[in-house]
Each structure stands twice: as structure tokens, then as C-alpha cells.
């Protein structure tokens, strides 16, 4: 065990970025990597990981319980995407920040904002802080392992450092007005999930998939042809522009994390191809929805000129997944209104190419 105030071995700029030079660090707690966990993975849960609540702890009865680190309890759980660490505490709101060369996917439990799931990368760090300034930093140190340190403010200052990313970014209220009813319900359910990425997805879905009445459409196009703005078309981009930089970055990081998840989905779908299996079809449908979620977030990122890194990461998986989907025998009736609508508004979107009920 490290002694009090020994810093984790991460890059100095990451230390600064995470505000760790402003806090007092507690003792290091090593989070064990579970060698046996692979055998428990990929059971029947083929859903794309949205970190839905109810994931099972990997440790069986009689083995390691949750590990206390400061005010947090840390335990390893099994998700459809592999292992993740669940951190929970008694706060109503948490601020998350990441640093490091590797991607570090994280999300807040949609049902409980005091729970955060993270998947540590090979060389990455993540801080999760409470409003009182106390929190935990999880550091993956190459060659050494995975460590968690609790921290507290050096002084009585309780404000969350500016470097940290507020987790809650509620979606705007205007997106709930949409036709038809299935679209309104889809947007509402996405907007209820916490986190900047989910808020961006709900706004993107609203913009991409709604069909305004003919008069509104004509007025919008007239404005565009005259070089003027239309309130409804402008609204999603104005919303994204109004978000703090850290929240915008969280959307981008969320999109990248979901691109990684998409790669994993494709591998699984190819390996376990079984067209008659309802579980396989569900997994395919979930993957297609995941791609559409990414496209919805990309709408906002493109408008802000921040899409390049996500598009670059997407290109290879778009090629491979597109080929795979087009090679599936037809008809493969999934009967999904969302994908049908995507096919209407974006006809060369490969994720809408699986024939749907019309």
C-alpha cells in the first residue's frame, strides 16, 4: 500500500487537468484484475452496453465484497461489454473527468446519479468528485495495475474544479414535441437517461427523424434559400453551442466509447450468427440503434466542427458493418419504426438497410 499523499504515476499535465495537484490524496487501494472473469462473460446478455442498472457483481458469494475507497464503494461488475467498475456514494450529483492516452468509457447509472461505471483503459485516469470536493481517482498504471485513491480538498473550498465535467446535462424541453407518438416516446426515454451523450443523442434524434408539416418545411427552406436561419433547424446546434466545453467534450468521449462498443458488437454478431435466434436478432437491432445513436450525436458534433475524430474512428467499422448487414439474407424482418424512419430520411445509412416491416 502506498503511503499517504504519494501521487499516482500519471502524466504531469493529466495531474493538473484532473485537479489532483489541488487536493490531498489518500492511500492507494489496488483494484484487483479478475483473471477468471472472462469465463463469466458473454452469457446471454447480448445487448449493447448502455450500462443499464442491475449488472451483476462479478465476485461470487464468499469472495471479495465492494471495496471502500474514501466515501465510495467500488466493485467490479459484469456487463455485456466486459468488465467495468461500479463506484457509488451518497451524493446526488457527481462530476467526472478523464485524462490519459487511452479511451476511458464512463457513464452514470440512468436510474441513480450516485453510481458511475467506468472501464479503465491501459493508460488512463478518471476522477469522480462529489459536490463537497471529495472524491476518488482511478488510475490504470501500465505495468503496475489499477489503483484507486480517495481525495479531499486541501482547504475548505467545496466548489468542483473547473476541469471536472458535470455529469448532468439535461436535454432541453422542446425536444419532447415530436410526431409521431413512437418518436416522441423514443426521445422522451432517451432524454431521461443521464449524461451529456444521452442528451445529445435525444436532441439529434429530434432533429434527424422528425417530419414537420409541409408549411413549416416550406418556410424553413425559404429562409435557407434567402440565407436566413430557421428556428427549428437552428435549435439543436444552438443547444450544443451553449454547452460548456467540458460537456461538449463529454459528448465526444461518449461517442468514441460507443464506436468502440460497436466494434465489439460486430465481432459478436459475426461469431454467433444465428438468424433464427431471437437473442441474436435483438443484438443486431441493438447494434443498429447504437449506430443511429452515434449518428444523432454526430449531428451536433459536425455542426460544431468537432466530428473528425469520431468519423475517423467510425470509418472502418462502418465499412465492415455495412458489408456484414448487406450480406445478410433478406428478408430479415425486424419491424422497427426507428430504422424504417432512418431509411426514409437517410437512405444510404447502412444501419437502415436491414429490411424492416413496411
Amino acid at each position, binding site marked *: 500500500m502506498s503511503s499517504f499523499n504519494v501521487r499516482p504515476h500519471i502524466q504531469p499535465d493529466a495531474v493538473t487537468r484532473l485537479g489532483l495537484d489541488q487536493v490531498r490524496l489518500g492511500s492507494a487501494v489496488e483494484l484487483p484484475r479478475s483473471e477468471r472473469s472472462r469465463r463469466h462473460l458473454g452469457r446471454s446478455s447480448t445487448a449493447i452496453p448502455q450500462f443499464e442498472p442491475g449488472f451483476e457483481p462479478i465476485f461470487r458469494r464468499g469472495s471479495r465484497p465492494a471495496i471502500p475507497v474514501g466515501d465510495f464503494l467500488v466493485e467490479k461488475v459484469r456487463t455485456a461489454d466486459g468488465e467495468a467498475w461500479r463506484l457509488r456514494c451518497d451524493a446526488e450529483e457527481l462530476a467526472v473527468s478523464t485524462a490519459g492516452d487511452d479511451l476511458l468509457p464512463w457513464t452514470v447509472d440512468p436510474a441513480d446519479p450516485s453510481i458511475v461505471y467506468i472501464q479503465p483503459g491501459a493508460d488512463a485516469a478518471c476522477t469522480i468528485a462529489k459536490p463537497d470536493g471529495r472524491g476518488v481517482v482511478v488510475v490504470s498504471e501500465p505495468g503496475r495495475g489499477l489503483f484507486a485513491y480517495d481525495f479531499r480538498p486541501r482547504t475548505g473550498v467545496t466548489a468542483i474544479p473547473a476541469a471536472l465535467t458535470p455529469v448532468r446535462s439535461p436535454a432541453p424541453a422542446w425536444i419532447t414535441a415530436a410526431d409521431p407518438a413512437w418518436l416522441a416516446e423514443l426521445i422522451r426515454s432517451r432524454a431521461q437517461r443521464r449524461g451529456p451523450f444521452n442528451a445529445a443523442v435525444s436532441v439529434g434524434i429530434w432533429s434527424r427523424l422528425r417530419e414537420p408539416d409541409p408549411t413549416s418545411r416550406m418556410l424553413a*427552406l425559404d429562409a435557407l*434559400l434567402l440565407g436566413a436561419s430557421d428556428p427549428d433547424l437552428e435549435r439543436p446546434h444552438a443547444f*450544443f453551442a451553449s454547452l460548456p466545453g467540458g460537456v461538449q467534450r463529454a459528448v465526444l468521449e461518449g461517442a468514441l466509447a460507443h464506436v468502440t462498443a460497436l466494434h465489439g458488437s460486430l465481432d459478436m454478431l459475426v461469431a454467433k450468427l444465428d438468424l433464427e435466434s431471437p437473442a441474436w436478432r435483438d443484438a443486431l437491432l441493438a447494434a443498429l440503434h447504437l449506430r443511429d445513436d452515434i449518428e444523432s450525436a454526430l449531428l451536433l458534433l459536425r455542426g460544431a466542427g468537432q*466530428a473528425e475524430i469520431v*468519423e475517423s474512428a467510425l*470509418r472502418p467499422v*462502418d*465499412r465492415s458493418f455495412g458489408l456484414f448487414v448487406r450480406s445478410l*439474407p433478406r428478408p430479415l424482418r425486424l419491424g422497427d419504426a426507428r430504422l424504417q424512419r432512418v431509411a*426514409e430520411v437517410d437512405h444510404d445509412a447502412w444501419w437502415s438497410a436491414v429490411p424492416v416491416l413496411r
Partner: protein
Amino acid sequence: MDLVAAFRSLQPIGAHLGATERRDAQNAARVLYGTLTRLAQRELRRSDFGDDDRDSVVSTVLYRMVAQGPRGARAGDPTDEDGVTGWLVTAVRNAGRDLQRGRRRHRSLDEVNENGQSLGERLRVDDRSAEEVQQQASAAQQQDAALDKAGRVLHAVVIPRAVRNKERKAEGAGARLHVTLVELRAAAMAENDVASLAEAELRAAGQPFDKKELGKRRAALDKRFQRAREAVLAEVEAMREEGLLDAALHAALGVRIQAELYLQKRKDSLLAATTREAIRRRGERLSGGFTLS
């Protein structure tokens, strides 16, 4: 502004854009509006499309493009004027078809159109002009010629390339792909489905009908056929990226592949079914055309 630039620059105008981007978005809208109007005139000439309908289709397509914009750089996006035009044509046709479908849901045979004719009367009256008939016949001939050419390219170029690529990666893999494609094509032309093929395999192996075994064989066939199709589709995409296929040939190849390498449970693709019929009429051989070399 050229069509490709317009395709990429179209996006909603707002405070989030600089002056140059706003100007580009406006110019892009104008270029695309003009192109879509022209394409709608050309593609939706049938008598059940009036001027108002064509305007509605143009505004629907343009609005959808703006709402999704800016386009970004997605894999497979058109990169030349031909490709963008093809993209727009598809969008116009789809929107036209959706407009008609929406109408059919609400129309009864007794409803009258703006000329005072009921649908029932119109179905009995061929009110197409001679020019329209001629144009449709000419379009059908062109389509036949394109599908013929696509068939030759598929069997003489695409499939041999795919087979050779597989063989390079693993000895024997090319031959296995070749055999699978022959089987797949034969099954598609005979309108078989995977379940029937799996049953036939069981019978040929002298095995009793067992649901579990049938399921296993069906799943194995699905996998084998899916991988074979993926290899062919990958080759088509590679050739398109190399600039060997123009937009029309690429589209025609898609139709040939759908007709010859997909097993249909129902005839829900009229074009694929009619293409298969045309292939049979011409007596194209099943096993000819692709060889390992």
C-alpha cells in the same frame, strides 16, 4: 459551387456558423434545389404525379438533407458528381414512392382526382401519353442492357477476383468460395430457401428428420452463404473505390447480386424476381462465367 461541394456544405444556418459557412450553406441549398427540381421532373413524370407533388417531393428531400447536415465524411459517401446525382435520384424516387404510399392508404376506388375521374375509372383508362410510354419502354431497355452488362461483370470479373483473393489468404478457401457461390446461385434461381436446402442435406445424408439437426444445418448454411455474399460485396466495394465501376454499373451490380445470391422467402423484390426471370429466359448457364485462374 459544384454539386459535390453543395452536397457536403448543406446545413442549417444559425448563429453557430461563421459568415463563410452561412454563405456556403445558402449556395448549397440553391444548387441542390435546382438539381432536385430537375431530377423530380425527370424521375416523376408519371400521370399520378402533378406539379404540386413534385414540389412536395423536392422540399421533402431538401429539408431532410438540411436537417441531417452538415454531411460529414461517412464511409461510402459519393465523391463525384455522378455519385451525388445517383444519390439524389434515389432520394427523389424514395420520397415519391412514400408520397404515393401515403395516398394509397387513404384512397378508395370511388374517390375522384382533380380531373373528376375516380380511381376505378382511371385504372380502366390508359391515360399515359404516347411519349410517356415510349420513354418508359426506352428506360426499360436501358435497364435491361445495364443488367446484362452487370451480369457479365459479376461473373467474369467480380467473382473471380473474390475467389482469387480468398485463395491468396488461405489455400483451398478460393475453391470453397467458388463452390458456395455456385450452390447459392443455383438455389436462388430455383427460388429455394435455406430451410429447404437444409432438409435436402439431411435427406441426402440419409439422416432422419430431426428438428435440432435441421436447425444446425440451417445455421451453418446461413453462415456459409452470408460469408460468400460478404466476399462478393467487398470486392464490388473495392472495385468502386478503385474507380472501376461508375454509379450506374454499381447499382446494376447490386440488382444482379440481389437476384442471384440472395435466397428469397417471398418475392418481395420485384426487380430481383424479374431479373431472375430474364436470366432464365436468356438461358444463362449456372456454372459458366466464373473460374479459378
